[in-house]
């Protein structure tokens, strides 16, 4: 059986008798992409699960008011973006500390081998991404990993296309600098190892 379209899912959701079934299908359809986006933002798997749950609970309560001319995935992605940013803000408030300390915690989680399966260069990349401020990190992840168009990103973040381009370009340069620095450091340490 073919996967139902978003329009079909919304139509099913609006019928009382098929509401739960439609919601289950909707979660199955979109959970992986949203999970990956959130995981790249908050790193920790348990926190990712909590944020993803919140995203779908908000979708459950808001889907009745969802306009059918908008894209369901963009709408869910927008909720995921907002929830991830809010989670990082709460984290900062909870720790009574700066963005730098939150970044340290995220990198610490990343370094835990049980959560991360990438090689050395992937670890360097993710560490570099973690050093970006949360909103810029979201922009980078959307464009670089998820390959969203700027117009779509603009709908998700509520930011202008021009500002997004600028933010992405700055992020790319920062990460390239971090990666190049990381590589030159590892080149220098190799002879002594």
């Amino acid at each position, binding site marked *: 059986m073919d996967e139902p379209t978003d329009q079909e899912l919304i139509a099913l959701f609006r019928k009382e008798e098929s509401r739960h079934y439609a919601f289950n299908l909707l979660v199955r359809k979109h959970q992986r992409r949203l999970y990956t986006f959130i995981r790249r933002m908050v790193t920790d798997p348990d926190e990712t699960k909590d944020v993803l749950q919140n995203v779908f609970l908000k979708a459950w309560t808001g889907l009745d008011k969802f306009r059918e001319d908008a894209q369901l995935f963009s709408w869910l992605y927008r909720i995921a973006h907002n929830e991830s940013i809010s989670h990082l803000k709460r984290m900062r408030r909870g720790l009574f500390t700066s963005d730098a300390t939150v970044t340290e915690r995220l990198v610490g989680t990343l370094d835990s081998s*049980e959560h991360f399966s990438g090689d050395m260069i992937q670890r360097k990349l993710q560490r570099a991404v973690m050093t970006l401020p949360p909103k810029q990190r979201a922009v980078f992840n959307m464009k670089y990993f998820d390959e969203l168009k700027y117009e779509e990103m603009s709908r998700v973040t509520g930011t202008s296309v021009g500002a997004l381009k600028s933010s992405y370009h700055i992020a*790319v340069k920062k990460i390239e600098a971090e990666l190049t620095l990381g590589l030159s450091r590892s080149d220098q340490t190799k002879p002594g190892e």
Partner: protein
Amino acid sequence: MNQKEHIEDSALRKDAPVLFGLSKQDPFRVEDGFFERFPHEVQALASKPGKSPLFLWLKRAAVALPAMALVLFAVHALRGPEVPLASVPVTEEALLSTTSDQFDTQSILAGLPEEEWPAFDSVTVQLTANEALAYVDQHDIDLTEYLYQQ
């Protein structure tokens, strides 16, 4: 992607050869069976009956009412005294008679010879018209005689 974006993208790729030379893999590990269990878990949470609006209002009221009472109390406590409408000079005798039983000034003074009594000056207290009338009424003061003495 339009032509302009394509050019921008190519320029960016040239500026960041290391980044764009990497494979875009997902290095984050997800526990086995997570995506099979998750839809059921989130559905169970969504199906839980929500709290009624009445409950939410009661919860808000439980916080708001004591706060409001505290504010009202603070306003009442900080409010200045009423504007005096009349001032009545109170003599030593009147003061003595209105001294509280707790201090029992009369019995203290009775134990002392008169020359050792402290010098009492006439003290002026500010009373409102109603308070002054109540004072006169309570102490059966003959106003005509009082004014004549003054």
